[in-house]
């Protein structure tokens, strides 16, 4: 009995091509308001680069052998992956589920709830791809990219975005109302934003904090991989960073779909 309860959280969803019709619905909404969606992600990195890179960077010694602005440029790309997908599948999905009843409308068609959630997750991953690509374009324009492999950041951003979408969707399945999202944002996203080797080398931190960051913060691995692909060199530890996503992403993808089913189908 107890085992089957645990197993019910990891039941593999049955998905079909219909997932894409949900993805396309979300994309349609995005395109309706493209001005709002495209301009801020292009402008925001500019402030980070000027404020932190040129401003604060004047006082900070090189980090991990990179000048400060070169060090934080990939962090801005990686954090945009996190924020765009996590927002999409917390606030975005919650509004669709709870206020707009969009999910109810769709499951009255041949789509299943599993497919609806999977479509939203894939859209969250796509948002990560879109936003981080724009940020990448900005740091390219600032000539902060030296590794010719930087285009690999695009598929990486989709994978990282998928994980953050799935994590976000788990919270969406559990939160009673919109205000409750303060918990994951302040207690999970904010510390991750600061302590994942984003704005200073993670090796400066006490070893216990480093361990927590490596075990529980996806952003740590996203930043390490992105930095390697913009300015750093390749090393075997990158395989560990990458494997971390390969293991956790399917895990949370499946878990989030089952949590949503438990919330919405009684």
């Amino acid at each position, binding site marked *: 009995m107890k085992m089957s309860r645990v197993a019910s959280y990891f039941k593999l969803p049955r998905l079909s091509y*219909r997932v894409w*019709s949900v993805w*396309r*619905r979300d994309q*349609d*909404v995005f395109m*309706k*308001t493209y001005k709002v969606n495209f301009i801020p992600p292009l402008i925001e990195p500019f402030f980070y680069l000027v404020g932190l890179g040129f401003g604060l960077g004047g006082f900070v010694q090189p980090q991990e052998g990179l000048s400060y602005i070169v060090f934080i440029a990939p962090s801005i790309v990686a954090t945009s992956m996190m924020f765009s997908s996590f927002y999409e599948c917390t606030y975005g999905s919650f509004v669709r589920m709870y206020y*707009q*009843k*969009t999910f*109810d*409308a*769709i*499951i*009255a*068609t*041949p*789509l*299943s709830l599993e497919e609806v959630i999977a479509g939203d997750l894939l859209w969250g991953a796509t948002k990560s791809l879109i936003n981080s690509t724009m940020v990448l374009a900005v740091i390219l324009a600032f000539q902060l990219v030296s590794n010719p492999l930087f285009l690999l950041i695009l598929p990486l951003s989709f994978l990282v975005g998928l994980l953050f979408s799935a994590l976000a969707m788990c919270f969406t399945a559990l939160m009673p109302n919109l205000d409750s999202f303060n918990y994951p944002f302040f207690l999970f996203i904010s510390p991750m934003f600061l302590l994942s080797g984003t704005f200073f080398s993670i090796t400066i931190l006490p070893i216990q904090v480093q361990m927590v960051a490596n075990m529980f913060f996806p952003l740590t691995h996203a930043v390490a991989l992105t930095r390697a692909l913009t300015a750093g060199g390749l090393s075997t530890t990158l395989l560990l960073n990458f494997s971390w996503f390969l293991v956790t992403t399917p895990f949370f993808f499946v878990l989030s779909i089952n949590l949503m089913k438990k919330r919405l*189908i*009684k």
Partner: protein
Amino acid sequence: MQSMVLIETQSLTKKFGDLVAVDNISFQVFKGECFGFLGPNGAGKTTTMKMVHCVLPLTAGKLTVANMDVADHAREIKKMIGVAPQEDNLDPDFTVFHNLMVYARYFDIPKSEAKKRADELLRFVQLEEKRNVIIDQLSAGMKRRLILARALINEPQILILDEPTTGLDPQARHMIWDKIRSLQKQGVTIVLTTHYMEEAAQLCDRTVIMDNGKIIEEGKPRDLVKKHVGEEVLEVAYDEEVLKFLRNTFPEARLDLVSDRIQVFTNQPKGVFAQILSKFTFKAAMIRDANLEDVFLKLTGRRLRE
């Protein structure tokens, strides 16, 4: 025409934890008819609808649509059903037309065909002028009509209407009724829930009355009225003497006291009240046709429901 069973349930039950929302009900819906679920709020009507269109799993019992079991043919069943839910779940980010187009995509309807159907449906529900308007700018009645149009985008054999006219003004309500009638004429089987008795009397070939998750009565609206409350109702202002008099005159009748009025229900043929009124005068006396509302209140009581 009413021979082929399209929806069949046996001992259908739905529990939410300890709450029994639908309690062991059985019913059949025939092809081409308009079948109504009447009941107060919380009777289990919507829950039953949701099981029929495969978005809620059954707790117990059996439910088939066109001989397919909902447990393992959800996709096929959902393809042949159109659903107009009680609450507005239109996509607020899209225009009227785009709402239909996006919905058509969920049914794999090719774009050119979807366009054609969307335009036809907008004409059908008289929303052509609002084609490119954002949902927020529609009135409640227009939203209901658009929801109806959306439910028809897949050319369904079965149309499920959950409280199709709740909250609408009389003009909007009559228009929806006209559309429902014309759809039935085209051969669409209609299953609707309502707590407006007039709606059921106007539209439904057969109805069931639900209360507390159970079906408590079933039949044609007119037969139900005749069976439970007769043909006419006499209403007079409350007065102790009048009450006594009426009791003696109509010993078999049912007398209800509703606030300051007496209602007399009798099985006797039409005209008996007119006879009495021609001989005696009562304060604020009125004879009216018995209706489904009388049946409903008799069967489900006057207690308020949450």
